[in-house]
């Protein structure tokens, strides 16, 4: 009696949680027909925003991968004084309100910022450019990649890297042929998360880069701007992004599953959760 009550309460709570998470997404689609979704794809505001979002996101992710991967590997494989501090630092943008990040970026790279005048002197102006969007996105999204990358590198068996060394491979060959392939699943998962976070970026972008259609107005900014003008269009645009997010998550999950099963022989459909 007491027992079944407890089990019931617990399943009920779980279902309530799922329903709460599902409802807003269902609501978006309930309010916007497929026809409207398609129609939005010819709205220049939407297409421009899509282009800006994709371009800056791809560049930002490139930046994140190129700088974040060595940083993550360093933090995962070496212990040095200040290590804990560095890890904290890497995670800080994750817990920083995006508006604060935007302020910080302005204070650092803005006209009167710490580096602003030096940059200006060499002819580089960042605010209001697409580069500013890229930087804002990279700043805000990087912890998601770096965290996951650190975890992925830490999870790769140190014995395997040692084995590679004893088989005559130097550090570079060991990294590219053993460590990287083994960490790949985690890196891809991290990249997908950071990509998603980047697409959703709002606060830091509007502060640091402004919002100009075709240049700095990302999809998220466009949704915000359109909200004040045309709620139905906003719904349709949101629908597009929800679909995009779902595709991203599913790709991520399938990618991880494939990665895992091909490397360890144990297929799992629960890749993301259990690896993170």
């Amino acid at each position, binding site marked *: 009696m007491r027992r079944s009550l407890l089990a019931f309460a617990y399943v009920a709570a779980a279902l309530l949680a799922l329903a709460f998470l599902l409802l807003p997404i269902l609501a978006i689609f309930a309010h916007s027909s497929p026809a409207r979704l398609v129609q939005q794809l010819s709205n220049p505001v939407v297409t421009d925003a899509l282009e800006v979002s994709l371009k800056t996101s791809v560049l930002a992710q490139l930046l994140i991968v190129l700088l974040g991967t060595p940083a993550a590997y360093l933090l995962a494989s070496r212990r040095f004084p200040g290590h804990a501090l560095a890890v904290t630092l890497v995670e800080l943008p994750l817990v920083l309100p995006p508006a604060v990040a935007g302020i910080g970026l302005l204070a650092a790279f803005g006209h009167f910022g710490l580096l602003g005048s030096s940059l200006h002197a060499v002819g580089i102006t960042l605010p209001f450019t697409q580069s500013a969007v890229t930087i804002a996105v990279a700043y805000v999204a990087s912890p998601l990649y770096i965290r996951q990358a650190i975890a992925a590198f830490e999870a790769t068996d140190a014995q395997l890297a*040692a084995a590679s060394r*004893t*088989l005559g*491979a130097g550090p570079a060959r060991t990294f590219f042929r053993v460590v990287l392939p083994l960490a790949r699943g985690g890196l891809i998962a991290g990249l997908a998360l950071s990509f998603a976070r980047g697409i959703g970026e709002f606060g830091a972008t509007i502060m640091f880069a402004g919002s100009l259609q075709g240049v700095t107005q990302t999809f998220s900014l466009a949704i915000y701007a359109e909200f004040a003008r045309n709620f139905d269009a906003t719904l349709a645009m949101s629908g597009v992004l929800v679909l995009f997010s779902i595709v991203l998550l599913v790709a991520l999950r399938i990618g991880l599953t494939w990665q895992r099963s091909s*490397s*360890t022989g144990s297929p799992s459909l629960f890749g993301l959760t259990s690896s993170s």
Partner: protein
Amino acid sequence: MATLLLDRITVALRSYELELSLEVGSTLALVGPSGAGKTTVLRAVAGLVRPRAGRIAVDDDVWFDGPRGVDVPAERRRIGLVFQEYALFPHMTVRQNIEYARKHGADDYLERFRIAHLERARPAQLSGGEKQRVALARALAREPQVLLLDEPLSALDAHTKTAVRAELHDLLSTLDIPVLLVTHDFEDAAALADTVGVIVDGKLRQTGTPSGLVAQPADSFVASFTGANLLHGDAEPGPESTRVRLDDGSVVATADPAHGRVVLAVYPWDVTVASEPPHDSALNVIHAPVRSIAELGNRVRIAIGPVTAEITAESLRRLALVAGRPAFATFKATGTRVVAEHEDR
């Protein structure tokens, strides 16, 4: 055959300092309890851990020399290391694993280790014995100057272990490079190596042939590690032999001279069992209830009071022993060895 030389290498570990010298000719097995530092020795030879001091060389090739600042990186020491859990690359096939160590001529090794039919398999799909063969093939594919094996049998079932051990023995006897292998099982060490070194807390206790260690264990640890009963008591020199009053009150004699607190080592096969008191008064006798009787093939292990005896199945049948009832365990004074007390961690 070349010789691997470790000269007073010192490695600082978590709770003690490893420090030892070792000369490996054909096959040497390092045995010791978990955490003794066995793996660390192999890692130092391989260049995966950097000793604080000492010298590691194979004949004229110096790999590490503390004072001279020589430290050849791991990838430039020609060693073959087989890891405890084999450390096969899970994302590569068997063939790719071997080709990682040797671009050309992997086929030879696939043939030689009878894994050619598995060349496309990934490590996760292999049995324990197959994994070991692949790991050996990969380690030897580099044509190393030295072969290092870390617990080559511990990842195996008790049941497959015997077969794989025989196979490994065959292989080692065909190699003409020094082999340093590590295990925590004295039986495995004795089965595979000519020389056995016992290591505890980073220090080498004793080195010798397996039978040498059994005949003359350096201390109580080596004695118990090689299978002896340990009897604790107080020794008093007597006219012909030393008399030892054991902690349970009984008195036994030993041929070894001793005085004060001692540990006596008695091997189970030097103990005989009787249901009647023996007539020979020169023998040591322990009269106590039978604690257990365990048959292992044709041998039977019988625990009587503080000692365990190993007798044949026929003897057991003759004796009609019953667990719980008293019996007599007897052994000669010359069958006991006084060994130094070892403070176990």
